[in-house]
């Protein structure tokens, strides 16, 4: 794909439609409250400006073809970026004009004078609540055209830079945005380690970075990246490199001589990293981490079913519900049917048994079904369980639509962990996560894990190799069910009540997105995916770091799933084997490139 003006124009046209969609989705309005760089840039405007930037990047993207010199980049590219950016800006400008002319608030809820003022940069804010004047509209439109052209050109110019400079600039921008967005989290942490003065230095009083701090962060990050990646050659570099290589040599020596010591040091390091911060972080952070932890449990369970065994289970939330409802029924005083009021630990034993039964019950009928039918039938089972929990028929047991309330706190025998004590809850969650991670890790490296991999890759061949597919697949379901049931038990006790509407298909899909974005079958990837998605965007009922995104997070989840499937199906942190399977035909195409020696030897043999 060579960048050309027609391509730039086409991308620009798509960009203008996207720009209209982004503007009408109300993202600009809802996120306007959050300042990124005070006082100039709000998150809303950043979202609106993101469209011309991305358009500029896409319009000037070229694919390096094997054996063909990449065309030299020149100012023509910048012009194309500007053209594409301007086209998307025209979308905004057109919207400004239309907002003044018509009123179609009836179907499109965000079609309002507020949006009009936002899109004309509040030039005429005095005329609020009516729309801005015609002059302001024209001015706004012109600003959009020029600003978008500039942004598109800037994005295209980014591609003109050398790779090192480009990564430095990109990281600098990313760092500024990241520091601005994690303001709440950072404040929380800084307060507990008695560094509050840093807050005042970085952030403005009304939120957002102040521009000096923004410049400082950008400079520091850009400088660091550049220093790390710059071409080596000077005297000073040699000394640096020697120092670094000396350290790495020492570490590898240590690892060779005392393998157990290094492993336990690493393990201790990880434990310290997980256990120590909650005592320093505030309630907000702990709550966030606890939510992430619960989704880590769920994702690890689905990872076993989908990632390791290759069974696409869309009704995974059913196991979560089984764990939650069993805990609720057994521990709550207000449980309608039976109310034994067991302590949480005792209920946990029953939860495990119920999870095993549920895993077998859902796994057995789908044993013979092929991939897509398996997905729909498990989805059906998930929905059936939710509908049964919601129904009047079983409301004698489950409480129906009213659910079960007054679920007591987690009674561990020696200590009681209430739902409001986020730190303790997080430690409980972390303990279970550790258990589940260890279990997954060991299972992955066992005979069972290899059997799962074999079934995932090709079930017929696995059968012929003598693997008992029935037992192994059931085991996958059961293990997944138990992990999800743990999450359900903890989550229910933490919240204190349970309602059927928190077990919709939505939750299953979100967990699936986490597993896929993180990397199917990869434990570290799944944890990273959960931290990234639930921590930043938020779960179905829990806000993440970016609380303003609440309305749009599901949209982003859907878009992210599509994007990951199209661009990088192996996920964030891929397992090597999986990437080979998924891009098999690419690997095959390049096979002849990487085996010239063997071919040459074969040719010689044929010739003689």
């Amino acid at each position, binding site marked *: 794909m060579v960048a050309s003006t027609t391509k730039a124009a086409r991308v620009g046209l798509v960009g203008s439609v996207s720009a209209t969609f982004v503007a009408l989705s109300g993202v600009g309005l809802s996120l306007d409250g959050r300042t990124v760089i005070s006082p100039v840039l709000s998150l809303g405007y950043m979202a609106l400006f993101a469209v011309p930037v991305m358009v500029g990047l896409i319009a000037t993207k070229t694919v390096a073809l094997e054996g063909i010199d990449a065309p030299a980049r020149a100012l023509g590219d910048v012009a194309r970026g500007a053209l594409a950016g301007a086209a998307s800006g025209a979308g905004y400008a057109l919207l400004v004009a239309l907002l003044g002319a018509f009123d179609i608030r009836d*179907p499109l809820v965000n079609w309002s004078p507020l949006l009009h003022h936002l899109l004309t940069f509040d030039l005429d804010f005095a005329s609020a609540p009516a729309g801005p004047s015609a002059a302001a509209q024209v001015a706004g439109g012109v600003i959009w055209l020029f600003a978008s052209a500039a942004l598109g050109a800037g994005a295209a110019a980014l591609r003109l830079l050398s790779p090192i400079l480009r990564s430095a600039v990109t990281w600098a921008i990313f760092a500024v945005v990241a520091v601005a967005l994690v303001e709440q989290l950072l404040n929380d942490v800084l307060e507990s380690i008695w560094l509050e003065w840093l807050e005042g230095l970085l952030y403005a009083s009304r939120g957002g970075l102040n521009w000096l701090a923004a410049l400082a962060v950008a400079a520091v990050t850009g400088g660091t990246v550049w220093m790390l990646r710059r071409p080596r050659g000077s005297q000073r570099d040699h000394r640096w490199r020697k120092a670094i290589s000396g350290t790495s040599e020492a570490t590898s020596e240590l690892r060779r001589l005392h393998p157990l010591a290094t492993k336990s040091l690493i393990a201790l390091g990880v434990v310290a990293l997980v256990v120590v911060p909650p005592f320093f972080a505030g309630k907000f952070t702990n709550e966030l981490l606890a939510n992430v932890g619960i989704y880590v449990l769920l994702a690890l369970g689905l990872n076993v079913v989908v990632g390791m065994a290759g069974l696409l289970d869309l009704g995974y939330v059913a196991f979560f519900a089984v764990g939650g409802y069993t805990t609720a029924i057994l521990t709550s005083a207000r449980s309608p049917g039976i109310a034994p009021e067991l302590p949480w630990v005792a209920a946990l034993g029953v939860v495990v048994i119920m999870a095993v039964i549920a895993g077998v019950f859902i796994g057995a009928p789908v044993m013979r079904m092929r991939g897509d039918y398996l997905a729909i039938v498990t989805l059906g089972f998930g929905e059936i369980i939710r509908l049964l929990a919601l129904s009047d028929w079983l409301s004698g047991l489950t409480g129906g639509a009213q659910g079960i309330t007054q679920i007591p706190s987690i009674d561990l025998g020696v200590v009681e962990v209430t739902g409001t004590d986020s730190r303790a809850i997080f430690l409980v969650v972390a303990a279970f996560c550790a258990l589940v991670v260890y279990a997954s890790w060991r299972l992955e490296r066992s005979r069972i894990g290899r059997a799962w991999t074999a079934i995932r890759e090709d079930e017929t061949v696995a059968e012929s190799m003598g693997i008992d597919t029935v037992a192994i697949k059931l085991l996958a379901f059961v293990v997944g069910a138990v992990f999800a049931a743990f999450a359900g038990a903890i989550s229910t006790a933490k919240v204190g009540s349970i309602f059927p509407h928190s077990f919709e298909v939505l939750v299953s899909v979100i967990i699936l997105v986490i597993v896929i974005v993180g990397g199917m079958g990869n434990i570290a990837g799944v944890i990273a995916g959960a931290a990234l998605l639930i921590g930043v965007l938020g779960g179905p009922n829990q806000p993440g770091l970016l609380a303003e995104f609440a309305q749009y997070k599901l949209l982003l989840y859907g878009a992210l799933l599509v994007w990951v499937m199209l661009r990088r199906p192996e996920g964030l942190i891929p397992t090597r084997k999986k990437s080979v399977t998924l891009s098999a035909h690419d690997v095959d195409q390049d096979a002849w490139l990487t085996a010239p020696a063997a071919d040459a030897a074969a040719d010689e043999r044929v010739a003689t």
Partner: protein
Amino acid sequence: MTAADSPQVASTTNRSKRANEQLIDRVLWLLRIGFIVAIAVGLFAFAWQQIDPTNPLASAINDDARRITWGQFEGLLVSGLTQGAMYGLVALGYSMVYGVLGFINFAHGEVFMVGAMSGFIVSTKLDAAGVWEDAFLVALAATLLASVVTSALVAVLAERVAYRPLRNAPRIIPLITSIGVSFFLQNAVLVLLGATTKSYPPSPDWLSKKRSIGGIDIAGTNLVVLLTAASAMVLLWYLVNRTRTGRAMRAVAEDREIAALMGIDVNRTIRTTFAVGGAMAGVAALAWGLLFKTIIHTSGFLLGIKAFSAAVLGGIGNMGGAALGGLTLGGAESLAPLMVLEPLGVSGASQLKDAIAFAVLIFVLLVRPGGLLGERTAAQDRA
């Protein structure tokens, strides 16, 4: 690994493997028989209830056992079949895409929802302009056009953006992508049009009053829906069986590579398939608007699953099967709470209507996975 073991160990492994397989087979048979027995007992109890509402079985398990009148039964049957026609229209889209590309297009339910939303916009605008009441048929035609065109456009767009790059990927990938597309479309509509329930304007009285045709009482709206669905299906049959485009569609569904070798533009044919499937969903959207009158951004999801169950019930890839499956599912959904669940003592059985569709799907896949009329998938997907 088994080869390296001694023959004794190998045979032990084989035996336990076979034992497990037999166990699963027995469990599956148990489930099948359980289903059939439950349905049979329910029907039997229902029949007995009709004869004598105070019979011993009814008084034991069903508290509000009563006779139902023919009018009630007729009403349920008619509404069930009408809904079934709607399911059939959407099921056709699923069947066609599965036949041609071999994966379940989860986003098809959302395609329907988008069509219904655009129908809502057009119909309310026409109502505000007074055209809806005065020139109802014209307004109806305009609404139909709007929903058909929008659904078809969205379907084609989804195909171009999300499914075409994955044409040769292992089939689990377009499936997951379609889940993402479905999520995206649902929330895009939520974000653009808001979360409130949208209502179509009411149909004029002369349409919605009950008429008696051939001894059956049927409301005018139901009649319109049935007739529209029937004509759409006839048009589709004609398209698929009597035109060149249809022949190309059937060829691509049979074997994509050979069809390409025969000179068929595969990309264009697949695009047409999606467009036609989307158009059918657009017709179903109008049917929904007339029957249920309210639409919300989550309406497409459940309908999509039910329509897929209908497609599987009739035989996936088989268009006659999709239509038949739809009618059957609609009828079953309407009548089963009354005729099977309630006599068995399930209180509030009508709440479980949605669960019936899933239960039917599981039942079909257990008892007759090919569906009523047999499935027709591409050569590469069979065996």
